[in-house]
């Protein structure tokens, strides 16, 4: 299950924190969300380059 969170970016240079472009197509979003190289505690941040659009997704197990 993925929890969607708004608010400020929490990026701290952590490898568990994945940043992806906000405007992902369906396949790209799927790839990010089920990344085989992703540690399960990862936080995924979808944002525009200027961070004007930002969604943080955290997988809740």
């Amino acid at each position, binding site marked *: *299950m*993925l929890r969607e969170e708004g608010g400020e970016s929490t990026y701290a240079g952590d*490898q*568990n924190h994945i940043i992806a472009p906000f405007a992902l197509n369906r396949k790209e979003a*799927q*790839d990010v*969300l*089920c*990344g*085989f*190289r*992703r*540690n*399960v*505690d*990862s936080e995924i941040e979808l944002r525009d380059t200027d961070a004007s659009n930002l969604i943080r997704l955290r*997988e809740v*197990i």
Partner: protein
Amino acid sequence: MPNLIGKNGRLFSDPQPGADEVSFKVDNTSDSYYNSPYYKQHQDQVLPIPSPRAKPPRMNLSDVLDDPFVQAIQAAKKISFHSVGDTGAAKSSGPATEASVADMMSADIRDGGSGAPAFFFHLGDIVYYFGESQYYYDQFYEPYRAYDRPIFAIPGNHDGVLHDAKGQTLQAFLQNFCADQPGRSPNAGGLVRSVMTEPGVYFTLDAPFVSIIGLYTNVLEGPGVISSQGGRYPVSDEQIRFLQDELTRLKPMRESGQCAVIVATHHPPLSADAKHGGTEGLFQDIDKACQAAGLWPDAVLSGHAHLYQRFTRRTAGHEIPYVVSGSGGFSATPPMVNVPPAPYTQGDVTMEIDPVIQFGYLTLTVDVSGNNKLLTIAFNSPKLGANYDRVTVDLTKSRIVKSGSRVASAAKKAAAKSASKGKTVRPKAKSKTARKSRN
């Protein structure tokens, strides 16, 4: 057939192995330590890596098995071995699941004749939850009491993690797997198996036709860590230098077709497991070492995730199986809920089959007897049978020449049969029931 006797009187199995135990000899209460203040305070910290006893840390199968045994493998131009991780059983349901895997592996040895696997390379998490010496009997020596072959191991996170400040990381692992000399283990409870004499917790095992570079991925539940990753983790970079040096050393032998090269880690670089995911930093560390050495492994084996997964990585002109088999008996875990059905490709990685949530183990075979030098990796399971899934790599071309699971091939046959009748059939592996079971 009499039990094997290895170099320097090494013994590998009990002469009179009894029936499987149905309850633990020592009650396992170690999960209570998860609430210890020390563990809670330190659970996100990596621990120092014990220095190897020999540098470079390297050993040969012929250091352990007697000369006629090794010569027979060389004459056959073919070697098989077992591999799996996460065999420890700490829960009351554990002895049965762990024993089911260990018993099938032991039967492979007993019934396999001259082609039986030569050894078992364990992928870590031998003893849950904190690698305590008092649980080595129930979780290692007893289940493998009839396994009449040497057992090598890299530690998993549970073998190294500490629950209090009095402990020393990997203490029991070092005593049982990295001893100076072969001999009895104080933890074997009277069962016969000589302690192993690995040169360190990360090391290369050179065997006829195959070299396995085993790495120690430290104690975090995730991610796996083998280097400081540029200062992110307070551990030495010695292990990543070792990996690069070993790949460089093995390159001429690999290129002349003398051996396959396998990298083994406890934490998986790639995983679709819901609880034990992949590890970007580890993945990149291995890649950097391969690029610097100019040699890619023929396969990457991992445990940690308690199921079976098989990926193919296509990079630098190679097709490399990344196989996860943390399916040795401890607590099977499901895959992520949002993973599409296999085959599913992300970048240069393809998940080849839907993850298999069953206990089981790998049998790897390197066969250089024919014109084509082949590495085959098969997944065997007490519930699903032998060779449930397998992949074969042509070592000359570094290409996968054959692969497939029994489920996939059954689906393919059904589809072909149906097509001949002009009907359309949905492949069994992707049926509604199969998809539903994952959610």
